[in-house]
């Protein structure tokens, strides 16, 4: 029956039926237990019609009005529409269940049915919407014919709808059996799916499209929740046991929360500062394994590659006796191996070769391996026993009892190979043949640094590498290569680092190892394109650059209030005193030809052009260089008063640096002037135009020197105030001699023009405040959205703006700093050169790019191509606070950004924890989904129940019921006798 047929058959949106079931017993099963109890299930059935299919606004409005005036009429289900079936995990009907009481319609339009037995997740209520329900044993339940849901519902009234049907169908796709699964878990899964659909409001134009949309929308959720249900043992039971004493039952509940509290105390979020060490202890020890593996990363990588290479090369081994390894193994820059092969052929054709390999491979500076190779038959061509020692600068690996077994999916045509009569078909089949490599070995791995052993692992490693059914093309245009994935790896042993140790058992499975190959880099060197980069520019205040990896938007504020202080620090000004014969200071100035250097070259002006008594005046300096680009003249700012002269000129307009000089008449005696002059180079400092603010916001330093001994002191700028001949205490931060004083009092002057430190045995340190400026200019904020390698999300930053560009328009800023003529690195492509372009107003304006190198994407993932991993790890550590503790983790990746994490913590030798604590979390679309903490006594506390609901929940253990509620500071647990604990 088509979906359209289902809709027409029951066009009313909701049918309600209430089923009363005393569980569900497979009536065909001879060993079914009969039960006198019965359970009543009440449900509504919603067809994929009105509420889910997209309608026009007018249609919805009319429908809403009709619904308001005329109560919904429930279409009648008859007994013939409803069947109860027991199904297996593939959805195949194993038997039909006869209800204890036939379905009846209640007054509210719902239906009820009574079944014998308890809840069963394999007991499915099937609703046929298009006539009598004729489901047969052996038939696979099909959403095209039925709406269904398992009889696991704990609510008074539950829904049977397309969502429950799709959700249960997806659930069946995910499981191979119902073992380790409970009705309540499946109930939560279907309820969660229905809530998700309600929240997201999935609609479609047709029933077929709706079903497809539901499958797409629910797929990730069902995968994740099913993985959680499969991985976790059901800890929450509706009927908890009792110790027979309310006090002891109370202690059981309290024990659970005390354990949660203990774990909370071990985490930073709830612990006081004193407890931080405990967490550090746990984390530090748990990271031992990572340190060992990372420390030997390249060694292990080369060892794995050596095995793989040997395996591939040995495929060419022709069984000839007494061969030198060089005859079957091609050494190259990486491989420098020598060895001799001794071979014995038994009567049944098994070739046993002893192969001793010495030399080096990659970082393995010393390879000393002994292979005993048995060439067995045409599907297990090679079985290798392995012992040896590998040494690299970073690590050494000692291998014992190693066993590597190579298997092929089909028989290798050995005779044809040996006889050189391989046909094209045989060659093609050989090239596409599936190959797997199983390895198990005892391994002792030491990580070294400077000939010292830092960390160590000893234990057993077993792994299986298989050839993917898809060959891998790393770069477009290259030949496809066989690609091998590690299907599973198991590691068991003991990591140690100094006195610390961790016993670990790690198991990782790549679920898609049989088919996985990394992404192919489709772009090629030299590729010119207008598809990769584009920009949006509104001509006023917004510019967006779009790339395949990220986009950023620059937003301009043309009215940003800038405060700038031009500062010449102690390293950029130089003072000297000189004597000159002159009638006076003014005569000296009038007689001088002053020269200043700029980015264009030298410029000069006459001292006679200066007007005495001028403050912040301007004089023109003429070009005194041969540069053709140089302007003919530049403006020089100056101040000239009795006995002092200072002038400055912009050295470089973009950066804003000033160059200048000051003159100060120190004395005048008998026609000889003593003049102090200071050259300075001042850079702009943004943030304040106030000397006091600038000084208070930073530290300063000076040093004293005596007989080659130096002591450096730091001065807090907040300790300085305006005035001359003041004292400030500096704090020692470095000295090259031990007897240096911890503090040193320096004399200082702080004025609006300069800050100078003076002290005994110290050179003066002088900072000049040359100019302050406040103006309204351009400010640009950049918002970056990344999607490829930096993770999701965005962050804001202020892009670089020079002094000059703060005075530009936004367009001038973009032209100054645009990507035109730039080289951009994109992780998903490689290096991209952007051709020059004229900035134009518009959206999605294409840029011309040329790729000058491409990246391999072997280590990158996206939603379509990712390594689907399941990891289980068990660590046993000795923690100072908890004693010997076993920590188990299970991680199941169910999608690109979906997964399940389960963490169990168990004390094995102390009473610090009352019971094993398990934390379970799901992640959907990179967001935390469910989160719960359970223990071995059957208690579960979930984030959703406690935090999201905001209401108190009751938790019963035997005779005691505790009320658990979130209070402002955490969780409050109140027992029936009024006692409570705060966590």
């Amino acid at each position, binding site marked *: 029956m088509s979906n359209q047929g289902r809709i027409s058959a029951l066009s009313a949106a909701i049918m309600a039926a209430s089923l009363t079931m005393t569980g569900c017993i497979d009536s065909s099963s001879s060993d079914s237990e009969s039960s006198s109890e019965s359970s009543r299930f009440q449900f509504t059935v919603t067809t994929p019609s009105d509420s889910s299919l997209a309608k026009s606004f007018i249609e919805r409005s009319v429908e809403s009005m009709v619904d308001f005036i005329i109560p919904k009429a429930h279409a009648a289900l008859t007994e013939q529409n409803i069947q109860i079936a027991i199904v297996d995990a593939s959805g195949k009907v194993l038997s039909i269940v006869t209800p204890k009481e036939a379905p009846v319609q209640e007054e509210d339009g719902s239906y009820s049915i009574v079944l014998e037995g308890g809840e069963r997740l394999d007991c499915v209520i099937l609703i046929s919407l298009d006539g009598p329900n004729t489901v047969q044993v052996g038939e696979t339940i099909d959403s095209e014919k039925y709406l269904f849901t398992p009889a696991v519902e704990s609510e008074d009234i539950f829904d049977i709808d397309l969502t429950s049907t799709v959700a249960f169908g997806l659930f069946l796709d995910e499981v191979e059996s119902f073992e380790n699964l409970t009705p309540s878990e499946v109930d939560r899964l279907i309820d969660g799916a229905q809530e998700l659909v309600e929240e997201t409001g999935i609609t479609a134009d047709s029933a077929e499209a709706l079903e497809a949309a539901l499958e797409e929308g629910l797929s990730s959720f069902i995968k994740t929740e099913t993985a959680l249900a499969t991985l976790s043992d059901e800890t929450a039971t509706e009927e908890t046991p009792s110790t027979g004493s309310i006090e002891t039952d109370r202690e059981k509940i309290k024990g659970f929360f005390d354990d949660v509290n203990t774990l909370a*105390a071990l985490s930073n979020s709830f612990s006081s500062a004193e407890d931080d060490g405990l967490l550090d202890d746990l984390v530090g020890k748990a990271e031992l394994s990572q340190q060992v593996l990372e420390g030997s990363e390249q060694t292990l990588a080369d060892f794995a590659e050596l095995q793989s290479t040997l395996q591939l090369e040995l495929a060419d081994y022709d069984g000839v006796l007494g061969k030198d390894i060089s005859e079957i193994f091609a050494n190259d820059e990486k491989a420098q191996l020598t060895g001799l092969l001794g071979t014995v052929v038994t009567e049944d054709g098994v070739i046993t070769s002893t192969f001793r390999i010495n030399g080096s491979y990659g970082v393995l500076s010393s390879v000393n391996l002994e292979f005993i190779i048995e060439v067995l038959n045409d599907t297990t061509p090679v079985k290798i026993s392995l012992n040896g020692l590998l040494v690299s600068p970073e690590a050494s690996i000692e291998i014992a009892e190693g066993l590597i077994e190579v298997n092929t999916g089909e028989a290798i045509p050995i005779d044809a190979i040996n006889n050189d009569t391989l046909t094209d078909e045989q060659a093609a089949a050989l090239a596409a043949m599936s190959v797997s490599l199983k390895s198990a070995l005892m391994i002792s791995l030491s990580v070294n640094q400077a000939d010292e052993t830092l960390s160590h692992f000893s234990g057993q490693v077993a792994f299986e590498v298989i050839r993917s059914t898809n060959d891998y093309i790393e770069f477009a245009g290259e030949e496809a290569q066989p690609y091998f994935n590690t299907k599973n790896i198991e590691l068991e042993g003991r990591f140690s680092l100094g006195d610390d140790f961790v016993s670990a058992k790690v198991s990782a499975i790549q679920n898609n190892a049989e088919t996985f190959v990394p992404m192919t880099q489709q772009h090629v060197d030299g590729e010119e394109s207008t598809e990769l980069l584009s920009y949006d520019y509104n001509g006023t205040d917004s510019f967006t650059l779009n790339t395949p990896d990220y986009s950023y938007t620059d937003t301009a504020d043309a009215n940003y209030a800038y405060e700038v202080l031009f500062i010449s620090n102690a390293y950029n000004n130089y003072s000297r005193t000189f004597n000159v014969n002159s009638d006076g200071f003014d005569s000296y100035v009038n007689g001088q030809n002053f020269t200043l250097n700029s980015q264009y070259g030298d410029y000069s002006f006459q001292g006679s052009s200066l007007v005495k008594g001028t403050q912040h005046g301007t004089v023109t300096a003429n070009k005194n260089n041969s540069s053709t680009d140089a302007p003919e003249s530049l403006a020089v700012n100056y101040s000239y008063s009795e006995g002092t002269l200072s002038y400055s000129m912009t050295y470089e307009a973009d950066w804003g640096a000033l160059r200048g000089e000051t003159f100060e008449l120190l004395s005048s005696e008998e026609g000889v002037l003593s003049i102090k002059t200071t050259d300075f180079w001042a850079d702009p400092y943004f943030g304040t135009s106030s000397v006091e603010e600038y000084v208070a916001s930073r530290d300063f330093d000076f040093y004293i020197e005596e007989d080659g001994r130096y002591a450096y002191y730091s001065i807090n700028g907040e300790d300085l105030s305006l005035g001359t001949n003041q004292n400030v205490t500096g704090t020692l931060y470095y000295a090259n001699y031990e007897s240096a004083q911890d503090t040193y009092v320096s004399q200082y002057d702080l004025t609006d023009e300069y800050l100078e430190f003076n002290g005994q045995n110290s050179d003066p340190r002088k900072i000049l405040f040359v100019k302050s400026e406040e103006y309204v200019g351009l400010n640009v904020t950049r918002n970056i959205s990344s999607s490829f390698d930096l993770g999701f999300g965005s962050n804001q930053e202020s892009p670089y703006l020079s002094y000059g560009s703060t005075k530009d328009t936004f367009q001038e800023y973009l032209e100054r700093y645009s990507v035109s003529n730039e080289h951009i690195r994109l992780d998903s492509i490689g290096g991209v050169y952007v051709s020059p372009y004229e900035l134009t107003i518009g959206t999605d304006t294409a840029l011309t790019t040329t790729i000058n190198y491409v990246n391999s994407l072997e280590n990158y993932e996206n939603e379509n191509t990712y390594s689907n991993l399941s990891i289980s790890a068990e660590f046993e550590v000795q923690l100072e606070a908890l004693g010997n503790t076993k920590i188990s983790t299970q991680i199941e990746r169910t999608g690109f950004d979906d997964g399940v994490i389960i963490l169990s913590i168990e004390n094995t030798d102390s009473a*610090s924890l009352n019971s094993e604590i398990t934390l379970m979390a799901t992640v959907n679309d990179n967001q935390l989904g469910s989160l719960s903490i359970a223990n071995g006594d059957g208690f579960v506390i979930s984030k959703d129940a406690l935090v999201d609901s905001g209401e108190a929940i009751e938790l019963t253990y035997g005779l005691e019921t505790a009320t658990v509620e979130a*209070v402002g*500071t955490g969780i409050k647990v109140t027992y029936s006798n009024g*006692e409570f*604990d*705060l966590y």
Partner: protein
Amino acid sequence: MYKHFKAPLFRGFFLSLLLPTFTSVHGGELHSHSPRTVWFGISSDNYSEAITLQDLYEDEPESVKKGDLIYSFSQWQFGYQLNNSFGFGFIRGLDIYAQHSPDAASIYYSSNASGQDFEERDYKYQLDGNVQRTQGIFLTYDTLVGDLAIQSMFEAGQAFGLTSVDINGDLSYQDDQLIGTADIDYFYEKDALYKREVDKPEGNYWSVSINLIYPSPLGKHMLSIQDLFNQTHWHAAPFTQVQINTDRVATTNENGNTVFRPLGSGLETYKSKTQVFPRQIDFKNNLDFNEHLEFIIGAKSIDKDVWPYLGSAILAEDIEIAYHIKQESISVSQILGPNFRYRLEADQLFIDKTHRLLFSAEISY
């Protein structure tokens, strides 16, 4: 820890203390009345040493001073003087009295004032506060023993709005955390700590107040003792007792491993509670200066606190003005004709700065 203390102990508690003060109407002091006189009086007597009254009311302190006392005694009464000896009437009141350590006020200020940080130091947190609302009937009896005029008042009735809290804590602020221990005994009508749903407690109260007035050659001497004897008894009052310790490490077990404890443990129950409010004593001497003027010297006392005052009375205007030395407040009271009297006292002209605020008025016919 900081949040734990802030939420229930400060914002919630202080707010519960102050809110009723400004939302109730209250009545007056003990005065003598002519026979067959009907009177209506209101009064509200408020003082907070550390935090201004408005800051407490708005729960946004802008300043804190050294201090350890908060009180608010407010009532309204409607009475009838039957003859020269007896009067009776109806009375409603609100009584708040809390003593706290200066550190408690500092913590309240630091945790509620915007942009205010805690000082990194140890804090001694103590708070002993009582709140009740009452309504009942009163009987007054006036008599003369020689020259000594005695006015007495007995009132009794129902009590509501119970809050009685006793907190002792040793806290310190380290690394942006308020840590330490605290013991809390808390009776309540509304649970500001954990929002426990409870049945409203009802109580019964009685109180005796007296005025003694003695004329001497020097002038007139008055001793007023409100709530000379008083008691409020609550049956089955909601009660929470809790001990908080932010150090979760409880002990080391026999294996040498750490045993952690909850952040706090306590008991929620119902139990009887008797509240006794402190006597409010006012000893005032109007000393004759001349036929127009009297000097006033006196002192007010509640529990261990004594507040002296000095002033003068202008007899022609029936007005008294006094300066209250420790509270730095000025009071004005005046009798306007035979039917109206009022009294005002404040330490600041601007309401947002006041720590001390009293007003009372009575109209009679």
